[in-house]
């Protein structure tokens, strides 16, 4: 059983395992899970060509091994992830494979091209294993709003996996994939990472190209990575990042060379760290006491190692969830107007004309949460109904960006929990959307400010033993710094990102 990219790569090089074996194991686990009484439901489809691609990788490795160790090293230098399988989210295009965003409306859609992130991973030798479950169109915090049914938490299947990238997070946590791709608009990678007890990174807006990723809130959307260790996130990030012709908002990542062989911060570097804790996140009324304790313990860890921790006042953060939903839902209403039954997937045509076709297709194709968000988005976008709500949301966002940037002029990291609670039981919030939205209390300001942030597994609840996550957020383009810091955390909390020690 391999838990990290490094140990898997060593086994592939030595010949003690093959990529085809790794893929076949994942396919067997998928089939077994599908017929289980309470399925995990992390993957919704294994790609048919995964074994074929893995076998091709095995041939390359075998040929290089025959040619000698220098040839083998050269091969892995050119293709660092050769033969390593990874989990994809159902809203990232992988050419020739189905993509549905966990929605009935995209039934039958087959991706005509690769997303840039998939292209770059495949060029590095990685094998796309299959597509993972998610909340429909990435709208949700629990992966309960999916046309495939919920993804459950690998630690306890009575609990949700978090969302919207719950399938990818559960696949990694259950050792069904070494790393996974997710997407974030308001916390959809960090939140399921926290609930499932693994690491999850949301990079700076633009660091990973959005080309080929189905749009939800374009000014907020960003691909993220889930893994057992900071190094398992850093390496794929280094191979996917950078400017992309097809995405004008994409950007190069400075210090990406530091991600390839991730080293923890040195003692001196650690002691010079200045950590900011927003006072607004210290309000404990209503917060889970286990999360509050874990937050205090994490703070104590920083001070015990010599870092300076200070509280900062950022009152604007109280409005971050509202600003986030105003902007994200407006953009969602606009982006999802393209799903009309004409160009993509499912069509419901009762022969009454084109307007009825749109209405019937969308009414039957979209689930309740997506409909709710489109309606609210259109409410916000209609000045006649909502006045200047959209402008107010954008004004608050501008203030959040400016005030958070000012914090990073004096501090290196903002420290806070990832979520006010640990994973909750399935069905307990599904009928109360506003309560579900409030799971994003600590995550949305990161997306609004376009900064990177990583969830680190930091503890368990006393009653149910469910994971609790903390996040280290840094200034724009400071991925190397926060990942190196996460490596310090990993060094002091060995294997904290491996919540399950066998394959399930």
């Amino acid at each position: 059983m391999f838990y990290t990219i490094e140990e898997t790569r060593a086994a592939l090089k030595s010949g003690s395992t093959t990529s085809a074996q790794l893929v076949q194991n994942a396919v067997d686990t998928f089939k077994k899970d599908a017929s289980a009484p309470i399925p995990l439901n992390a993957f919704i489809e294994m790609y048919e060509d995964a074994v074929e691609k893995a076998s091709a990788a095995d041939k390359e490795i075998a040929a290089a091994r025959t040619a000698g160790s220098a040839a083998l090293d050269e091969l892995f230098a050119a293709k660092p992830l050769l033969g390593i399988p990874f989990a994809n989210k159902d809203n990232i295009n992988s050419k020739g494979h189905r993509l549905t965003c966990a929605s009935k409306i995209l039934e039958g859609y087959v991706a005509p091209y690769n997303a840039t992130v998939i292209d770059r991973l495949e060029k590095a030798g990685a094998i796309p294993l299959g597509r993972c479950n998610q909340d429909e169109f990435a709208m949700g915090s629990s992966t309960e709003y999916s046309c495939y049914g919920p993804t459950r938490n690998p630690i306890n299947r009575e609990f949700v996996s978090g969302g919207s990238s719950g399938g990818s997070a559960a696949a990694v946590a259950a050792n069904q994939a070494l790393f996974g791709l997710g997407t974030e608009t308001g916390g959809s990678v960090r939140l399921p990472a926290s609930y499932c007890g693994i690491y999850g990174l949301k990079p700076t807006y633009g660091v990973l190209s959005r080309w080929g990723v189905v749009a939800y809130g374009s000014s907020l959307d960003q691909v993220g990575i889930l893994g057992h260790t900071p190094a398992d996130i850093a390496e794929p990030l280094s191979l996917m990042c950078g400017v992309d012709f097809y995405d004008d908002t994409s950007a190069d990542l400075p210090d990406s060379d530091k991600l390839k062989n991730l080293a923890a911060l040195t003692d001196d570097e650690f002691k010079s760290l200045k950590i900011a804790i927003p006072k607004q996140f210290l309000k404990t009324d209503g917060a889970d006491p286990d999360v509050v304790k874990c937050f205090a313990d994490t703070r104590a860890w920083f001070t015990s190692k010599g870092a300076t921790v200070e509280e900062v006042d950022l009152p604007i953060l109280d409005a971050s969830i509202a600003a986030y939903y105003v902007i994200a839902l407006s953009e969602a209403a606009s982006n999802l107007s393209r799903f009309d039954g004409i160009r993509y997937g499912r069509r419901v045509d009762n022969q009454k004309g084109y307007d009825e076709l749109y209405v019937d297709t969308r009414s039957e194709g979209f689930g309740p949460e997506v409909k709710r968000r489109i309606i609210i988005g259109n409410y916000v976008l209609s000045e006649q109904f909502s006045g200047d709500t959209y402008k107010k949301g954008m004004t608050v966002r501008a203030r959040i960006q400016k005030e958070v940037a000012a914090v990073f002029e004096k501090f290196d990291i903002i420290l806070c929990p990832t979520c006010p609670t640990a994973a909750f039981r399935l069905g307990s919030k599904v009928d109360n959307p506003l309560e579900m939205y409030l799971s994003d209390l600590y995550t949305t300001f990161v997306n609004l400010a376009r900064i990177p942030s990583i969830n680190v597994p930091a503890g368990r609840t006393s009653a149910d033993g469910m994971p609790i996550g903390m996040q280290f957020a840094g200034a724009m383009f400071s991925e190397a710094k926060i990942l190196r810091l996460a490596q310090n955390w990993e060094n002091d909390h060995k294997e904290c990102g491996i919540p399950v020690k066998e394959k399930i």
Partner: protein
Amino acid sequence: MYTADFFYYNNRMATQHKEIDPQTLENLLYLSRLSPESTNMETLKKQVDDIVGYFDILSKYDDSENPYDAYPTTTADALRGDTIVEGLDMPDVKKVSKDFMDGYFQVPKVLGEGA
């Protein structure tokens, strides 16, 4: 545990949010190209009211800040070079929809009987 009520009553402005009336909700459904029959209108109205009411907190922090500073780019005329790149292969494009015929997406009639 945080509850909706906790945030709703702690963060809402003193001014009461005007509730969405049934006619506005129907107009929003039409604008969204969604049918009223596909949803429970009473539940939807309550949920939309709760969420939209929560947005009132924004008024507390609204000021003279330029909202357009929040866009990823504020340079309107910065267009990329007019570079020709290879397009998608037609056999791949045909797979995105089942309703594809003679090189075109098949659409319902716009004119004549059945339009």
